[in-house]
């Protein structure tokens, strides 16, 4: 059970949150002009690093805020700058 620091509510147990996958995947500006390959990359392809990973979490049972945190996928350490 990870302890996740919600920017609004403070530290809460992982089961109050929903995982949102890789962070920083922006919706293409003009989807219509994207090639099939570009579009498929946006929809289907995500990084899966062994190590630090920027990912999105949603505080579903709390303040309902989406936020980004950096987690180490091996140690589960959460980046604390």
């Amino acid at each position, binding site marked *: 059970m990870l302890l996740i620091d919600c920017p609004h*509510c403070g530290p809460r147990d992982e089961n109050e949150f929903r995982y949102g996958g890789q962070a920083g995947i922006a919706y293409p500006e003009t989807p219509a002009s994207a090639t099939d390959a570009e579009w498929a990359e946006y929809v289907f392809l995500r990084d899966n690093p062994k190590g630090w990973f920027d990912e999105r979490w949603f505080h579903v049972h709390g303040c309902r805020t989406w936020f980004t945190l950096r987690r180490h996928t091996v140690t589960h350490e959460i980046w604390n700058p």
Partner: protein
Amino acid sequence: MTRLDKGGLVDRSVVLSFSFDGRRMEGHPGDTLASALLANGVRVVGHSVELGRPRGIFSAGPEEPNALVRVGADPMLAATTVELYEGLEAWSLRGKGRVDLDATDDRRCDKGYLHCDVLVVGGGPAGLAAALSAGVAGARVILVDDQPRLGGDLLNSRVRLDGSRALDWVALVRARLASMPDVRVLTRTTAIGYYDHNYVVAVERRPRGERLWHLRTAQVVLATGAQERSLAFPGNDRPGVMLASAARTYVNRYGVRPGRRAVVFACADSGYEAARDLRAAGVEIAAVIDPRPQAPAEALAGQVVTGTVADADGLLTEVLVGDRRFEADLLAVAGGWNPVVHLFSQSQGRTVFDEEAQAFVPGASAQAERSAGACRGRYGTAEAIQDGYAAGCQAARPAGKRQGGGFRVPETDELPLRPPAAVWLVEPQSTDAPDVFADLHRDVTVADLARAAGTGMRSVEHVKRYTTAGTGADQGKTSGAVVAGVMSALLGAAPGQVGTTTFRPPYTPVSFATLAGRDRGALSDPVRTTAPHASHVARGAVFEDVGQWKRPRYFPLGGETMEQAVLRECRAARTGVAAMDASTLGKIDVRGAGAGEFLDRIYTNMYSTLRVGSCRYGVMCTADGMVFDDGTTTRLADDHYLMTTTTGNAAAVLDWLEEWRQTEWPGLEVSFTSVTDHWATVAVVGPKAREIIGLIAPGAEELAFMTYAATKVLGVDGRVFRISFSGELAYEVNVPWWYGRSLWETVLDLGAVPYGTETMHVLRAEKGFAMVGQETDGTVTPQDLGMSWLVSKRKPDFVGKRSHARPDTARDGRKRLVGLLADDPAAFVAEGAQLVGPTGPMLGHVTSSYVSAALGRSFSLAMVRGVAVGDRLSAVSGESAVPVTVVEPVFYDPGNTRRDGDPAVRAVAGRAAGCRKESPAAAFAGRFEAAGSERVRLREVPFVRMWEVRGADPGVGLRLGPDWWLVTGDTEERPGWVDVSGQRTVLELTGPGALDVLITGCPIDLHPAVFPGHAQTLLGKAAVLLERFSEPEGEGGYRIYVRSSFATYLAEWLLDALEG
């Protein structure tokens, strides 16, 4: 009897009677089952799992590999960990436990959540010192220990501190800990798991049932001590062979002689301590065998035990040392110590082999933890206390308000310890020597390990899986180091190179009942109910689970089967008037200047152009273009919409909207508020529906198709939508939750026939309306469902649009929605049946299948590729193949002629009686009252007015999140506030015991110094808003705001919690 006349920590003035294998025996408070069995002369407690060899008591703690027993409903417990109680009934086992399905389990298990700055695991000298120094520094401390009383190994030994009994020092520390309000001591509590981010799970044994503690802490001090180990020598499994520290524990702590005449095998100095204490208790010491070349005069130096001899029952009679034989009924083995590094290892710390201690000790930490005392090889009592003080001070430093330190370490009478002998294996001297065991629990011998090594295995992980060593209920606590030592001897490598297997939770076995706690039976999963639920129950509805909701599936009359009831309900909806409780549909209030634009981007069709007062059906897709959800959305005002979702997707859709708003389109001014529970919804359906609507909401009966009116319904502010999912004239009538039951009963009193979800499915399927989750499965586009008309060509973009042009989604030959009719109208095609043509592969599958009253036959919907109307297929399911023909998927009234109902039925004069008001937990008032006590009281605060407010701070109410407030009470409603009075109800918990109730289900830190006054979190399995209040003076308590549909679940959960 082998009980000593005096000494130890048992209370001889009280006799507890118990039974073992049906024999009546007696013991005393303070005994374990193991010590009581020894006191009653029981030598053989069970038989081993594979070989059926007689086995006795080997240890005095949780590391026990042999003495496994069944106690009541518990199929397998170590007798060394069972506290004796009056009437205990225990049975011996042959190795493996067996669940007695008839045994009654009346245990009442529970859980609890606690938070602290410093968690200390272990209440021995190091742990006590750590808890004291951390507590003195001002940290919030929790100390857990698995024994009934604090002291750790000091309970078992005769060591003196500052010239007094060690337990006097323990009593002093215990008193100081008890005087500190922020120090909590949990005895009989075993920490079983150490997880990420300093999350430790512990089991507290209580007479009425265990409590599973979830502990979250900033810092951990592990003071888990050390366990003695044996070594591998021939005949090392006989009853009478016991760890030296255990023999010492039985005489010192329990006043029980584990034998008459003993040989001590002292590979480590603890053997001498055992010999001294056994001798003091009247046990004759036949010999002390010390493999080390330098040894005290009493020992045979440089010798090892080479074998044992047993009598016909398998009991130890002689110990062999080379050519010498010693008559003995006890062989006390001091093989050295294994620091208890299980929790450290679970925390992902790496252990290292300490050559001097000949043991695996903690290396680098992976989390905010430190080990102190014997669990890191500091075995001496004074040394452990000193180590504990230092660890507690360090651990408290981040949280500490005061600087600790200056603790005096008492003087001990212990002698300095010499390094143990590096002996792991004594090879048999002859081929007929008895087996040499490495793991007593799993009956794994050195020969088995040699076979593993012989096959080329080098990793202990492989050896473990091949031989099963270390996989018993004891998880190899006594055998792990022995296996590593023997393998190192067999492979010619150092034990440190061989290493240990991974330590995994739980440290000791845990029953499923403990893990389940109170989440059993009706509380195992929250049940959501609608406002009219009690009416459905009273009417004999058969329910269906839709997500967590209980929905009536059908309403049988008399002895009707489901099929008969559904045919009758369908007929009523198609020819008269029928009603369904549609309250479970998700309802989302969408507001803001950007609301229309937002909906245009989310739905495949247009909403910004929808006229105010009109409803429109829409489909939303995920980014891959697949259908995600559907429903109607109504424009209530220019910048105000009400979206409906499917029952199952309500939460997912709300999350989805929030995700796009927050992460992609933060510039759009729009907000979303769930009003699913605020509104109770009754669908009134059928050609004669107009009459009922005219009576309950005069004027609304003349609404045009796909329009809405905000109007009085039974005298209260409600909403009526003219929406149909059946092709018939239909209305969805909404009133706030409080009036939902009354609305439902009134509609039925006026003649509507109640129908459930099964009839709803038939009616929509007859019209060919696809159902999300039935026809769709995440691989279906709107176009696949024949809904191209619903996909805007004008909009530049919407979520999923670009994916509809991907080669795979745009290609011909995808599965599409079709209708199917079996050749035989009475034949029923199973949902899920595979569809095949005369030749060739599978073409699709049946998604919906029903018997239709209107059609007088069966019919089906299916997703099939490459077929045209008129094609003939086989629907194959199991052994049956039903011939079917492909038809258009609209079976009933394809011209939509029935939409406006029976023109002859008009509104009649009159008006139904007013509406009764009922709060979501009204039915619990009596039980709440009865469950109250001095310590804690529970009540519902009904009919609290509430609004959710977005955007600017209203200056009143509770802040729920960024730009989000809940305003309650007697306040003037302001423009833009969303009335959610029916969405939640308030349960109020007051009294000094309120906090103790909440910690059994609320995972956040409720300590007054930390809790901010209110928070949205979880309680049990329900999402709640928790608010602490301090009025009236000195009393105070908590208000629990819970969704109305979860009120029944949470009320039951709280009542259960109040039982304690």
